[in-house]
């Protein structure tokens, strides 16, 4: 019965949305804001990846919020899992030597790759979040392969905090020097497509990369702890 009602309601939704979508033909060029970014983004922000220029600069405030959302979720998860009660210890199968060794071998390499991604956020697809996720995956691998090893909570918290603070401070400096605008791109834009370009964008993306990486690692840490 519920399924039938649900199907009916969903079909009404589908009807409405289909009607609305009629006005938005797929693939048609219609976006004045988007065109503006593609046309002006290169000079205004110095990033050759326009998505990054949008993410970090034009809509940098969103990104600040986004970083915060992740931060909130990480803390929230920590808070939720922190109040657990004591429970019986579970027998955990240790990883095989191959995995153990492989993970340790790969760990620095993946970290480097993560760093590559967030350092090149303004040039190639990717950026702080993606790089951070890759960094975190390195930690996942460590947890999978070598259980005993835990990241220092203090260190991860510190990195997290510093990452967030760098974002805010870089933004606030804009109030003083960047024409009085929060998050304005007041640093030299550099030469397009070179690593040292796009002003504050790489700085912010690096901060985000660190922050996201340590946050996700912290999340994983909490989950691992929970499963023990």
């Amino acid at each position, binding site marked *: 019965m519920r399924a039938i009602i649900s199907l009916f309601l969903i079909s009404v939704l589908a009807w409405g949305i289909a009607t609305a979508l009629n006005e938005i033909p797929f693939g048609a060029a219609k976006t004045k804001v988007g065109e503006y970014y593609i046309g002006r983004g290169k000079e205004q922000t110095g990033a050759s990846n326009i998505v990054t220029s949008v993410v970090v600069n034009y809509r940098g405030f969103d990104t600040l919020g986004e970083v915060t959302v992740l931060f909130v979720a990480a803390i929230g998860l920590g808070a939720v899992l922190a109040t657990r009660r004591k429970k019986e210890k579970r027998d955990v199968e240790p990883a095989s030597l191959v995995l153990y060794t492989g993970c340790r071998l790969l760990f620095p390499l993946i970290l480097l790759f993560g760093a590559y991604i967030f350092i090149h956020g303004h040039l190639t697809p990717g950026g702080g979040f*993606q790089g951070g996720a890759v960094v975190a995956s390195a930690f996942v*691998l460590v947890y999978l392969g070598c259980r005993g090893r835990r990241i220092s909570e203090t260190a991860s918290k510190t990195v997290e905090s510093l990452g967030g603070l760098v974002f805010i401070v870089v933004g606030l400096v804009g109030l003083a020097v960047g024409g009085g605008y929060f998050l304005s791109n007041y640093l030299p834009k550099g030469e397009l497509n070179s690593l040292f370009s796009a002003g504050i964008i790489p700085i912010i993306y690096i901060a985000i990369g660190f922050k996201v990486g340590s946050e996700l690692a912290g999340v994983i840490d909490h989950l691992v702890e929970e499963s023990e």
Partner: protein
Amino acid sequence: MSQTIAVVFLAIMAIGIFLCLLRMLRGPTAPDRAVAVDTMTTTVVALLVLLGFVFKRYVYLDVALVYSLLAFVGLVAIARFLERGI
């Protein structure tokens, strides 16, 4: 590389992926499915690189690298789960 060859290559890979999918659906055990996924992801990595070549987009290489990394981590996680390691 001519268009035809590219299409043929891609088609073969697609069929291969499809075969893995079949195994994944049939199982019968969880490790069977994991093996299927493992094979499939490796094939997909190769496919991504090849697609990048076909479309002339360098960025596909990065995508392939990230994909293989995540697939690896994911599979190890599945494996560890199956052997009650997490």
